[in-house]
């Protein structure tokens, strides 16, 4: 049976966020946002920021560990890792990589961080700025397939075709996220409720994705602090343990997410969790029905739906019946989803805000608290490769 794993050996002891802004609205540079989130997470943990000695990020984060460690005057820099992959697919993998560094003995106190200032740098919702389309991209971009929604949307269409998924299932995800955001003063969409009519009347970005099916574009930063489980109670009386994690993809998912080999993957209509989810559950020693609350990355609602199905939380033939707002909303839903508002309605902090909300739920501190939440599943970047998933628990030692 299983080799030794990270299960229960590393804990999240601090979480930190800046204020969240609409794209281009941050008064601060991206690097300043990054520093602010890290210092907030250290404060939350009661960790002297100078004791941080490890860094983990993803998506080619621009805020590099050497500059951060220099400006924060850290005593030692012992670990700095970047998860491969361009989108938010690697977000939960970055947490898992941080944990691996601690378990391996490379470092003691890791910060996982992500910052975005899309006003200062490029926008996600526009075409990549490329003068020519080389190789993989030459078979895609000249046909107007340029943005993330366009690169990944046809997988959603194929999935909906294969399983007879109705638009109402995608709509339910958007409605649940927006409903949760109304109780979350940090959420960019706080005070901007969404109704089924508003959704139905909203314009398409690319069919079948309406405006409200697509993540926001935001500025801000988020960070969380990891230490070994045996040290966790030095810092907090509510440690949140990592029970299981997996990062990667199904076979042959393509050389570039969205390039032509991506569209020739043998299994096309996948969010990329069919191999990862069983691995993470096995490591955690839990079953899908043990999950109390889910924070699942919405680049696009259809991908979120596919990710939840691939995590065994809904059978494909039950999708239209199950995906209704009542089932997805706290406190009484069967599967409370994205209880802070998620990428759609809280903030697109590239999914790290979802992991933070998972931690908040297990501390009992959410704006949309699920009663007695003990297991939180957090899922990164569906439809891309590598994707990643992580399972947090309140209890390090015993099976639920």
């Amino acid at each position: 049976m299983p080799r030794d794993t990270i299960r229960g050996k590393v804990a999240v002891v601090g979480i930190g966020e800046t204020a969240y802004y609409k794209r281009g609205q941050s008064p601060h540079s991206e690097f300043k946002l990054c520093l602010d989130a890290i210092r907030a997470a250290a404060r939350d943990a009661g960790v002297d920021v100078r004791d941080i000695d490890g860094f983990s990020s993803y998506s080619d984060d621009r805020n590099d560990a050497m500059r951060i460690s220099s400006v924060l005057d850290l005593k030692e820099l012992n670990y700095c890792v970047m998860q491969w992959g361009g989108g938010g697919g690697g977000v939960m993998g970055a947490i898992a990589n941080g944990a691996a560094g601690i378990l391996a003995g490379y470092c003691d106190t890791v910060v996982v961080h992500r910052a975005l200032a899309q006003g200062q740098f490029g926008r996600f919702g526009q075409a990549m700025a490329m003068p020519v389309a080389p190789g993989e991209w030459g078979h895609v971009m000249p046909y107007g397939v340029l943005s993330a929604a366009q690169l990944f949307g046809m997988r959603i269409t194929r999935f909906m075709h294969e399983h007879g998924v109705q638009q109402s299932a995608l709509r339910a995800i958007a409605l649940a996220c927006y409903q949760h955001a109304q109780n979350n003063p940090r959420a960019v969409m706080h005070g901007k409720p969404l109704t089924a009519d508003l959704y139905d009347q909203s314009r398409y970005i690319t069919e079948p994705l309406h405006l409200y099916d697509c993540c926001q574009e935001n500025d801000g930063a988020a960070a969380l602090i990891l230490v070994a489980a045996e040290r966790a109670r030095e810092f907090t009386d509510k440690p949140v343990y990592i029970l299981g994690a997996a990062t990667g993809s199904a076979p042959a998912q393509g050389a570039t997410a969205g390039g032509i080999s991506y569209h020739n993957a043998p299994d096309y209509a996948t969010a990329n969790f069919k191999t990862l989810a069983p691995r993470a559950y096995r490591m955690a020693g839990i079953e899908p029905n043990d999950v109390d609350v889910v924070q699942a990355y919405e680049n696009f609602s259809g991908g979120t739906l596919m990710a939840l199905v691939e995590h065994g939380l809904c059978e494909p033939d039950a999708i239209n019946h199950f995906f209704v707002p009542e089932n997805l909303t706290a406190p009484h839903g069967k599967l409370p989803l994205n209880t802070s508002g998620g990428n759609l309605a809280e903030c697109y902090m590239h999914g790290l805000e979802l992991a933070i909300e998972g931690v908040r739920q297990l501390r009992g501190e959410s704006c949309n608290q699920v009663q007695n939440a003990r297991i939180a599943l957090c899922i990164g970047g569906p439809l891309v490769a590598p994707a990643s998933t992580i399972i947090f628990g309140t209890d390090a030692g015993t099976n639920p």
Partner: protein
Amino acid sequence: MTDDTYLPRGLPDPVPSPEGLGTEYWAATRNHKLVVQRCQDCRTWQWGPEIICRSCGGEKLGYEQVSGKGTIFSWQRAWHPVHASLKDAMPYIVVLVELADAGKVRMIGNLLGDREQPVQIGVSVEAVFEDHPGDHPFTLVQWRKT
């Protein structure tokens, strides 16, 4: 010139990869021929082009002509312009076509005709060659219902 192409000029032009992958394909489309990379040892088709055969690991790869017939495997209709050159071209239809005679190889193109036409997965289509003249001419493969 712009009226002859489904999308206006201004999108990134296709070029082979820095390793040269795709050179034969783009040369063939200039002659209005659709070709797909194929392993000369195990006869497996593969797309996009790669350095070795994904099936047998062989290094003897060639390009072979196919009929240009296929079916719509998936599709999208883009409504939001994400590139300056597309502002007056919305909406447009993108199809992912599974070729009829090249294993399960899939190619992306635009579906010609009414931009607001209904689109269904499984519908038969055929390749149409769309020339883009200029200093660095190239030819795109588009699709129309049969």
